[in-house]
């Protein structure tokens, strides 16, 4: 690691946002779609992954592909495909997020495997493969779209919470490991989103009872609100925000 001068630190590095390439690891769910649209509006080119296998619509500024990023070999192949067609990835946004309700006592191995694969192993192997490329180039941004349930228990989805707890530590570790090479790593903890009271319906916890009344901003969150925070986070000059967890929940967790 070479020493950086203060001048270098204050000058935005890399290409302008008009030509940056952002990879969205799950462009099929509501958050991935909203983030894709917000980044396209901000001038980013997009590489969009469809974990289901259905190929997303491509275009001049966007490449669609379908791979399982929880498998390292597929992640490596995707990295080569994207590099050949679009060039190197400047921004990695991990959006894979699936909630399978299951209790501690009933959680079987298959459920835990699926939840870990979807919610955290995709992030780990994407970080390894695309992070290595960012380190080689000496620049890059990684954002993990996670959940307030990396701290607050759900009372309904233990495997999901375990995966998000692990994802939070991946973000912190990646910040330590990749920060000196010019890569910035942060994590969004979203909560009180529209539909969360159904997604996390619990017989053990009253956290989602009367959800609407508990959110200090007075409304539930929408995916486009997560997307706009990410666009702001990626703006030039934000390089000192690193290894941070940014809660985007309308203040919901203040009650807990």
């Amino acid at each position: 690691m070479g020493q950086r001068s203060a001048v270098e630190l204050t000058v935005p590095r890399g290409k302008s946002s008009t030509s940056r390439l952002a990879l969205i690891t799950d462009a099929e769910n509501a958050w991935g779609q909203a983030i894709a649209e917000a980044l396209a509006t901000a001038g980013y080119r997009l590489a969009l992954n469809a974990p289901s296998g259905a190929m997303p619509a491509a275009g001049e500024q966007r490449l669609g592909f379908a791979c399982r990023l929880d498998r390292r070999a597929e992640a490596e192949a995707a990295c080569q495909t994207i590099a050949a067609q679009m060039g190197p990835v400047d921004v990695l946004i991990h959006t894979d997020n699936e909630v399978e309700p299951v209790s501690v006592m009933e959680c079987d191995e298959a459920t835990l495997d699926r939840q870990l694969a979807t919610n955290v192993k995709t992030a780990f192997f994407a970080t390894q493969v695309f992070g290595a490329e960012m380190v080689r180039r000496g620049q890059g941004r990684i954002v993990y779209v996670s959940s307030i349930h990396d701290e607050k228990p759900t009372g309904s989805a233990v495997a999901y919470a375990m995966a998000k707890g692990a994802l939070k530590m991946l973000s912190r570790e990646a910040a330590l490991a990749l920060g000196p090479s010019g890569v910035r790593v942060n994590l969004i903890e979203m909560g009180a989103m529209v539909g969360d009271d159904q997604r996390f319906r619990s017989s053990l916890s009253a956290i989602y009872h009367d959800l609407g009344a508990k959110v200090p901003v007075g409304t539930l969150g929408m995916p486009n609100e997560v997307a706009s925070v990410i666009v702001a986070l990626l703006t030039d000059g934000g390089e000192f925000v690193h290894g941070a967890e940014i809660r985007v929940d309308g203040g919901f967790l203040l009650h807990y």
Partner: protein
Amino acid sequence: MESLQGAVALVTGAATGIGKGIAVTLAQCGVMVGINHLPGQEEGAKDTLERVRAAGSDGMVLEGDVRRRDEVLAMGETLRGQFGHVEIWVNNAAYQPNHRLLAYPADDVERVLDTNLKGYLWGIQAAARIMRDRGYGRIINISSVHGKRPAGFDPVYAMSKGGIKMLVREAAIELGRYGITVNTIEPGAVHVGGKGNPHLVDTPPPLTNPDDLARRRLTFPLGRPGLAKDIGYLVVMLARPESGFVNGAAIRADGGSMLL
């Protein structure tokens, strides 16, 4: 204070290191101990059993791989079959290969998550199945300061500890109704005499010159790293009947190191 005399505990990964120290400390308080170990660790497990008996208690050796749910459930039932009841379960067995993030081999990603995360879930399930019959139990999970603070030497180990944090919090609210508490201990650096050492280490590494202590205090405010028995004492505290209102907690045991 009520006595722990006659209680029965299962400690995973008790052939070596922190697990051995926990088993021996529990035995000193009259607890009978099931000593889990992996195949190949017979010498260390036998040594633990001898120390448990030397402390005036009794126990049994339980070979089994915590990654396998069926083996973990069977170990619990074997221990209950031997002593009639199990009210303390200590999830401790862990794997930490120390790879860097970008060079982490995929098979070790699986092994760390399987041992440290799945192993703890299977342990909680096995323990709770037994304990809920009597409406009482103490499940204690040995995690790490690296469930919060990134380690820099093993990212997947830290990820597994972040997962344990959430597993414990979820289990604490789910199992409370059965009179079972679920808590975490987060040790900092513990001096165990090297990975896989089958013997108990009861004293800190010696200081060889006067400057050593000052240097050591830059890492350890108390002038020494942790010992397995330090963690053992905390397990005993959480295992006591009087600790029944401590639930879903994570207690750091690092001598204040993380504050430096």
